[in-house]
């Protein structure tokens, strides 16, 4: 197992280096170079030279890359052009919000998607199967921000059941030791804040979790179907095992392997979708941060934010791989 972990970690290195080069090249691919982009319409030769010097752009490329790598390793992504705040500090402050939302969406997706998929597989080709699979295709076809709009319009604007924006009521004063508001409320034992945080979390999490839910349901169904056809399941049945025991011992366990991988891949969808969902619900996470950066052409923020999320994505998939290897010893050998 240890060897497996080490090998996976080693495999990660070229990916991370490649990623850093890609992002490094990206900002330098801007028309006129990064200094022009930073200055926009204000670019005068004198100012460009000043900014080039300030950001070290007048040094040889390889030295720029080394110092960029050095800063990135220390999680220093520079400073936002529009707010003048440190990008790393902003990420540190906003990241918990995005993670909290993504985790809630994932809980929603997995909590409903897996049972739905299993049930659909067991009722293969019955109406439940057809309806849930058609429903999941529909779910996949809805743009996340449109769904967010609809949920907000129906449940917040029209029915007033749930709050429409933010992570907590504006007037609530509470401390945030972790930045995860639900967790904060538990840690500080603040029941009111807990209810408040959860209420704010519901709509965005459902909006963000719907597409992953649909995909998880489909993959679960497909893998359960596959496992049900495997010889060992058939023979277990033939040996007279009860259907429930077969399900538990063989079907679910084996069917969960591909589902695990999909859940890992979903983290990319969640991070992307979170950008759009957060905007609709004024959720102060990475999404609104990047949106503002897009509008302001705030390249240090885009660079730092995208690189950071990509690293998170890679690490999550590494963890999923490791889990996978843990669950299925065969993987470790290959």
């Amino acid at each position, binding site marked *: 197992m240890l060897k497996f972990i080490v090998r996976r970690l080693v495999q990660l290195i*070229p*990916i991370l280096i*490649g*990623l850093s080069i*890609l992002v490094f090249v*990206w900002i330098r*691919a*801007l028309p006129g170079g990064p200094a022009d982009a930073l200055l926009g319409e204000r670019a005068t030769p004198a100012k460009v030279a000043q900014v080039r010097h300030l950001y070290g752009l007048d040094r040889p490329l390889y030295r720029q890359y080394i110092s960029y790598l050095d800063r990135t390793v220390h999680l220093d992504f520079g400073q936002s052009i529009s707010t003048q705040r440190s990008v790393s500090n902003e990420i540190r402050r906003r990241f918990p919000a995005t993670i909290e939302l993504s985790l809630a969406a994932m809980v929603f997706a997995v909590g409903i998607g897996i049972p739905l998929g299993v049930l659909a597989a067991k009722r293969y080709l019955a109406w439940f199967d057809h309806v849930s699979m*058609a429903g999941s*295709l*529909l779910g*996949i*076809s*809805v*743009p*996340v*921000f*449109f769904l967010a*709009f*609809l949920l*907000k*319009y129906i449940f917040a*604007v029209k029915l007033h059941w749930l709050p429409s924006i933010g992570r907590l009521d504006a007037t609530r004063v509470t401390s945030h030791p972790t930045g995860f508001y639900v967790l904060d409320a538990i840690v500080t034992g603040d029941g009111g804040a807990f209810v408040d945080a959860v209420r704010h979390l519901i709509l965005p999490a459902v909006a963000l979790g719907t*597409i992953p839910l*649909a*995909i998880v349901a*489909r*993959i679960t169904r*497909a893998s359960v179907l596959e496992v049900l056809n495997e010889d060992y399941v058939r023979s277990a049945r033939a040996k007279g095992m009860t259907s429930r025991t077969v399900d538990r011992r063989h079907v679910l366990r084996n069917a969960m392997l*591909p589902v695990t*991988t*999909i859940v890992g*891949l*979903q*983290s*990319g*969808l969640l*991070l*992307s*979708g979170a*950008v*759009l969902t957060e*905007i609709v619900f004024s959720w102060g996470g990475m999404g609104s941060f*990047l*949106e503002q*950066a*897009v*509008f302001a*052409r705030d*390249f240090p923020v*885009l660079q730092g934010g*995208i690189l950071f*999320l*990509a690293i998170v*994505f*890679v690490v999550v998939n590494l963890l999923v791989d490791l889990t996978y290897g843990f669950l299925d010893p065969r993987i470790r050998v290959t």
Partner: protein
Amino acid sequence: MSLAEAEAFEISIEATDDTGGRWSEAWQRLRRNPSAVVGAGLVLVFVLVAVFASTLAPDSPNAADLSHLRPGYIPGPSAHHLLGLDQQGRDELSRILYGARYSLLIGVVSLSIGASAGVLIGAVAGAVGGWVDNVLMRLMDIMLSIPGLLFAIGVAALLGRNLQSVMIAIAVVNVPIFARLLRSSMLGQRDSDYALAARSVGVKRWRIAVQHLLPNALAPVIVQGTLALATAIIDAAGLAFLGLGSADPGTPEWGRMLAETQSFLQSSVQLALFPGLAIVLSVLGFNLFGDALREALDPKLRR
């Protein structure tokens, strides 16, 4: 990950040599599948609307008449304007119809670029193998390590506000997906009897690749392409929602129309609903059809 990407994971269409029989059998299976028929119908309607928008639309998508509007009031559907007016006093129906054109254009162009580049890279990697394969595939891994839409945001933000940059951004995101798909599909066939036989009689490697491996690898590419079109439409809408898209704010692009109605959501929810539904229906069409196509072409399900 989108459905397309998920399916790429799910798709594991095995190569067979009976190319002709496979397609005709798939056609039979498709015809019998109701979801394929519904999907194909939606796609057909979408394509027809896109092509004949100028004939079908009762009005120009840009002809504006502000005189019926008041702050906080936008006329809804009426006999004169079936879907009502938009926030600039333009005919909403005409704009929805013209919007299909932009969706199709962005989808087809970005996909053609992305799929061609991906197929080329995948084919080269699969055919040449060795260090070339290694380098190309690591490069694709790196590209895949950035979540799709974020990658597209980065590319589009870099290229500026216009339709071309959206197309390129979506194309770039699709490249590694197709490259991987094609390569794995080719690798699956490399050791097939046909390939081995051809190699033993001295047929050149690239020739085997072009004449045999590539045509057989096309099935998954077509399935993937259908599903990726759906994703492209959603991603383009997402980019437009973020303000990345055509420089002309009057462009009747569904994603932008939806984004621009944010501030009218409470008073005129129909303006968010119509473009939203248009996106959902066209995306659903490609998803249904692509999914059915996958099932039809999947030999595993033929048992």
